[in-house]
């Protein structure tokens, strides 16, 4: 089996994988990072979204081998070492942007990417459009959109500082 080396949440890791091993399987089963969820397994729900080289991707629709040499960030990589939440996580908590929580890791990872890619600003309508690839079966979208709007100034303030 081929061996791949990549960085996950800032740490160098290597693992033996099969050709067919998906990135989400590598994360959950080999690296024990079960914060990344598998919802639909058909590329639609977005529960498995992680960042690969700074872009949000569905880790159920990428081979582990395609991530060889990449930098991957999962939900586990967001909070600071002392437990301080990432502003997006903090705003999800503040605005009660979750009910069952199943979609939350993917929602948070997509939300961070959306805010980072739109430094010029985001309307509520744009946030809803950009969330196209993430489904919440509790239909908790309203508070998710509120949380993302609230995280926007916090994240860009942090970038400016």
């Amino acid at each position, binding site marked *: 089996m081929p061996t791949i080396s990549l960085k996950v949440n800032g740490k160098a890791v290597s693992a033996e994988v*099969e*050709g067919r091993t998906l990135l989400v399987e590598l994360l959950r089963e080999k690296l024990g990072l079960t914060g990344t969820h598998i919802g639909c397994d058909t590329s639609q729900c977005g529960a498995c979204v992680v960042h690969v080289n700074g872009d*949000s991707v*569905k880790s159920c629709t990428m081979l582990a081998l*395609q991530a060889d040499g990449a930098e991957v960030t999962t939900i586990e990589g967001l909070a600071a070492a002392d437990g301080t939440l990432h502003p997006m996580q903090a705003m999800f908590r503040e605005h009660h942007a979750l009910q069952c929580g199943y979609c939350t890791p993917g929602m948070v990872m997509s939300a961070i990417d*959306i805010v980072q890619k739109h430094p010029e600003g985001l309307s509520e309508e744009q946030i809803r459009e950009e969330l*196209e*690839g993430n489904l919440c079966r509790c239909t908790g979208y309203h508070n998710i959109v509120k949380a993302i709007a609230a995280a926007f100034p916090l994240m860009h303030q942090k970038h400016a500082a």
Partner: protein
Amino acid sequence: MYDFAYQKPASVADAVKLLAGDAEAKLLAGGQTFIPVLKQRLNKPSAVIDLAGLKLSGISVSANSVTIGAMTTHATVARSAEVKKAIPGLAMLASWIGDNQVRHRGTIGGSLANNDPSACYPAAVLALGAVIKTNKRAIKADDFFQGMFTTALEPDEIITAVEFPLPVEKSAYEKFRQPASRYAMVGVFVAKGPAGVRVAVTGAGQNGVFRVPEMEAALAKSWSPDAIAGVKVSPEGLNSDIHGSAAYRAHLITVMAKRAVAAA
């Protein structure tokens, strides 16, 4: 998913060699269609040849053309200031494919090689009279699309880039999305450029993308939504499924085309 041998060649020549040497091998571009196909066990390749090492990604603009590397992602095309300026309809189209995550991985070359009858890119490529460049030759869009999931590509041929001729005077894409999958139920790309005035429709035809000559003739005389308002597209040869009948799609083609003309 059935297992396979994964290969990541570093040059187009090496990729072609691997492909030509194994009839059961398949190419992997962005994988946003192909990986789901593998997961459903609809395909059982002996080897998967990843094209990510071939350096086929990137956009270059000259006085006469915009050239987009085959492995360029939809997100890159959608955000490109150069594409937005030269062919705004093309950037618009790319920004509506799938969702953010799909756009970060999916590529123009993969989309064209697959030629899904509901894919967006074939409409732009046909309407803009683009040229598909491969390791062997340059194929005109008019000759490239040959029916549902069928193209002019030979078994050992790899798309390297797509060249869109300039100057493009007008371009726009309008898509009526299937409400669940968000694929185009009907997508219409309208363009006025070196290939003339063209109207290309995706999502509706049983044989994939096609042009609407009556609309093209009307728009060549007068570029306005009113000029094509009276064009009735025949439902013959259009898809009919649980999402909409052929007659419904035929009607939508004129509606989407009018909107695209107004937006261009």
